[in-house]
C-alpha cells in the first residue's frame, strides 16, 4: 500500500472525527467525501484489498435486509466482512464504509465486502467497485411512481451493469423486470425464486394492473402471483417465460411467528413472517452458494436472525403486546393485512396514514389495497389515525367495516392498553414510524413508573 493512500485515509478519518466532535454526528458520508477529494481512485484501491469477493446488493425493496443476512451468513462462516449501513448507499457513503473499516495503519482486513447501493448511484459506484457478484432483489414501482419512473430506473440499472461485464448477476426470476434486465445486460446471471404459489390469498389483489412484456409489448399471462408483479409469468406473443430457478424455495409454511421452507435438500426455520423476507433470505443464501460456499452455518444463523420487525418495534406495556409495522406502499400494506390475519387471537388495530412527501401526498392508493379481508381479522376495534385518518375510515366504511378515528393517538393507545384486547397492532406509513416508536417508548417508561408507585 502506498504512503500517499495511507495519508489520505488517515486524514479523512481524522477530519470526520473532528467534524463529529464539532457538529455532533452526521459524519456517515464525510470520510468518503474527503477521501475522494484527495484521491479519486480510493474506492477502487480499497476494494482491491478485499481478499476474496465483493457483493453488491441493488433493488427497489429488500436491499438492506438481504445485505444484512448476507453479512451475517458470511460472518457465521468465519469470514471477515465489511458492510455499509443503511443511509450510506450512495457514492460517499459507500466509500466511507471502506475508509472507516481500515485499521490504524490505513489497511483493510477483509475477506468479503457486502455493499448495498442505491439504484441511481449504481451508475457511478459499480464501475469503481467492479463487484464479483451483484444481487438484484427486484424492480418495483411504488405509489410515488405513477408515471413511468420505473422505466428510468430500469435504464439506469442496465447502463450501470453493462459497465461491469464481468460481474455475475443473481436475480429474482419471479420478477419479470429483473429477468428482462439480466437478459438485456449480457452478463452471466443466476436465478432464485419461489416455485410454488404461496398459500396467502390476501396478498393478491382482485383487479390487477396489466404487466406488459418489455420485449414485445404484449400483455403477460400469469399462472400465479405471489404479490406485486412477482409470480409465474409468460408472454403469449414472443415466448418470454419465467426462468427456471436454480435456487428455489418450496414447502413454504408461514405462521405468526415465522416460517419454514426448503431449498433443495436443505430446510430453513426463520423468523420471516412475510413472503418478501423469504425472498430476501433466498437471495442471501443463493449468493453464498453461487460464490462457491457450502453455507454450512446458514440454518443456524437464519434461525436466530432478527428480521428487524421485532426488537425496536415490539413492546409489552402493562400486559398489552404492541407491535408497530411500517408499510410504505400498497404491496407492503397488503402484506401487513395478511400478517394480521395470521394471528387469530382477539386484537385491536390502529392504522395511521400521513400524507407528507415521503409518504406520498396522494392517498388514492388506499383504494388499491384489499382491506376487505380485515373483516376476518378478529378485531375488537379498528382505529384510523394520522393526517388522513378520515380517508382511512372512509376506505373501511366502503367495505362495511366499522372504524373509529382518533385525533389523539396517545390517548387511544392508552385506552387500548387499559381497556381493550391486550394485543395491539399499529400499522403506519413512513412519517408515522419514528413518532409512534418514540410515543411507545415514552409510554413504556410512564407505565413502568405507575407500576413502581402502586
Amino acid at each position, binding site marked *: 500500500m502506498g504512503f500517499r493512500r495511507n495519508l489520505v485515509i488517515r486524514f479523512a478519518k481524522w477530519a470526520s472525527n473532528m467534524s463529529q466532535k464539532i457538529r455532533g454526528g452526521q459524519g456517515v458520508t464525510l470520510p468518503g467525501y474527503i477521501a475522494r477529494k484527495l484521491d479519486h481512485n480510493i474506492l477502487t484501491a480499497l476494494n482491491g484489498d478485499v481478499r476474496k469477493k465483493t457483493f453488491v446488493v441493488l433493488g427497489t425493496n429488500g436491499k438492506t435486509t438481504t445485505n444484512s443476512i448476507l453479512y451475517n451468513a458470511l460472518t457465521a462462516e468465519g469470514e471477515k466482512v465489511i458492510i455499509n449501513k443503511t443511509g450510506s448507499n450512495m457514492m460517499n457513503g459507500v466509500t466511507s464504509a471502506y475508509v472507516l473499516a481500515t485499521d490504524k495503519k490505513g489497511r483493510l482486513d477483509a475477506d468479503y465486502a457486502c455493499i448495498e447501493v442505491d439504484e441511481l448511484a449504481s451508475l457511478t459506484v459499480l464501475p469503481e467497485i467492479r463487484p464479483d457478484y451483484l444481487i438484484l432483489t427486484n424492480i418495483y414501482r411504488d405509489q410515488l411512481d405513477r408515471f413511468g419512473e420505473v422505466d428510468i430506473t430500469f435504464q439506469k440499472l442496465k447502463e450501470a451493469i453493462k459497465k461491469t461485464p464481468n460481474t455475475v448477476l443473481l436475480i429474482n426470476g419471479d420478477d419479470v423486470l429483473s429477468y428482462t434486465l439480466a437478459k438485456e445486460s449480457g452478463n452471466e446471471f443466476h436465478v432464485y425464486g419461489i416455485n410454488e404459489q404461496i398459500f396467502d390469498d390476501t396478498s393478491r389483489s382482485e383487479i390487477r394492473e396489466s404487466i406488459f412484456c418489455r420485449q414485445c409489448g404484449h*400483455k403477460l399471462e400469469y399462472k400465479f402471483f405471489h404479490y406485486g408483479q412477482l409470480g409465474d409469468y409468460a408472454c403469449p406473443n414472443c415466448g418470454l417465460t419465467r426462468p427456471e430457478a436454480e435456487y428455489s424455495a418450496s414447502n413454504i409454511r408461514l405462521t405468526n411467528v415465522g416460517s419454514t421452507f426448503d431449498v433443495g435438500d436443505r430446510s430453513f426455520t426463520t423468523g420471516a413472517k412475510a413472503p418478501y423476507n423469504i425472498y430476501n433470505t433466498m437471495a442471501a443464501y443463493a449468493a453464498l452458494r453461487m460464490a462457491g460456499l457450502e453455507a454450512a452455518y446458514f440454518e443456524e444463523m437464519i434461525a436466530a436472525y432478527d428480521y428487524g420487525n421485532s426488537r425496536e418495534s415490539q413492546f409489552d406495556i402493562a400486559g398489552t403486546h404492541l407491535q408497530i409495522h411500517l408499510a410504505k406502499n400498497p404491496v407492503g400494506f397488503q402484506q401487513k393485512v395478511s400478517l394480521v390475519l395470521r394471528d387469530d387471537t382477539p386484537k385491536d388495530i390502529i392504522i395511521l396514514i400521513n400524507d407528507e412527501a415521503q409518504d406520498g*401526498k*396522494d392517498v*388514492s392508493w*388506499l*383504494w388499491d389495497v384489499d382491506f376487505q379481508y380485515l373483516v376476518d381479522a378478529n378485531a375488537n376495534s379498528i382505529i384510523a389515525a394520522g393526517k388522513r385518518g378520515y380517508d382511512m375510515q*372512509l*376506505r373501511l366504511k366502503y*367495505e362495511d367495516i366499522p372504524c373509529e378515528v382518533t385525533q389523539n393517538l396517545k390517548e387511544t393507545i392508552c385506552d387500548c392498553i387499559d381497556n381493550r384486547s391486550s394485543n395491539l397492532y399499529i400499522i403506519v406509513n413512513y412519517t408515522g414510524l419514528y413518532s409512534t416508536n418514540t410515543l411507545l417508548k415514552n409510554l413504556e417508561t410512564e407505565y413502568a413508573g405507575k407500576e413502581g408507585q402502586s
Partner: protein
Amino acid sequence: MKLNIAHLYPDLLNLYGDRGNIQCFRKRLEWRGIECEVTQYLQGDTIDFSDVDIVLLGGGSDREQEIVCEELKKIKDDFKEYVENDGVVLAVCGGYQLLGKYYKTNTKSIEGLGILDIYTEWEPERLIQNIILESDLFDMPIVGFENHGGRTYIGNHTPLGKVFYGLGNIGKGDFEGVVYKNVIATYLHGPLLPKNPQVCDYLLKKALDRKYGTDVEFAPLEDEMEKAANNYIYARYSNKGNVLQENIKKRL
C-alpha cells in the same frame, strides 16, 4: 331497480384508485336497496351500450392510454350516441383526455373520441397536489388530488367547477373539468367519489331517472364520514385562499 355499470379497461386504466369510484357507486346503491351490476370490459370485448347505465373511464399512463385509444375507436360511434342520449359517464384523468379531440404529448398526437369539443396538450411540468373545486351543481365543495402533465382546453364547454385551491384544467388555477349532458369529466382522483358523495349521488340519480323515465325516489344516506374526509381537505386550505393562483398571477 337496478343499474348496470360498465368499467372500461380496468386493467389498463387504473392508476389512481379507480376501484374506489366503482366501490362507491356499488355501495351507495346497495345501501339504498338498489341492485347494481358492474361489468369489466377488457381489450377486445364488445360493449352493448343499450344495456349500460353508467360508464367509468379511468386514467392510465401514456402508453396504456394509447392502447385504450385503439380500442375506443372501434366503439366510437356507439359511445357518442350513448352520450348524446343522456348516458351517464364518469371520466377521470386519462379518461377525461380521451373524450376530447386529441392529446398531444411531447412526442406524438393521440387521437381521442371527439365526444367533447376539447383538446389536451402536454407540458413538462406536472401538476401534482390536492385540489378543491366549487361547483354550481353542489353546495358541498369537491375535493381531490390532481396529477397531470396535460393541459386541457375546454373551449365553450361548461367546467365542472371553479378552482378554489389547486391548478385545474390548464394549470392556471381557474377552472377544472367539464360537465356535458350527463358526463362528468375531471382530473380529480383520490379517488373522486368516496369523498364527494354529492357527485356520486348526482350521477346515480341521473342514471336512475334516465333508465326508469321518472323522477325516482332516492333516499339520502348518513354521510358523516364522507363529510369529515371532505371537510378535512377543505379546512386545510380554506383559510389560505388559492395561493397557487396568486403565485401564477405574480409570475405573469
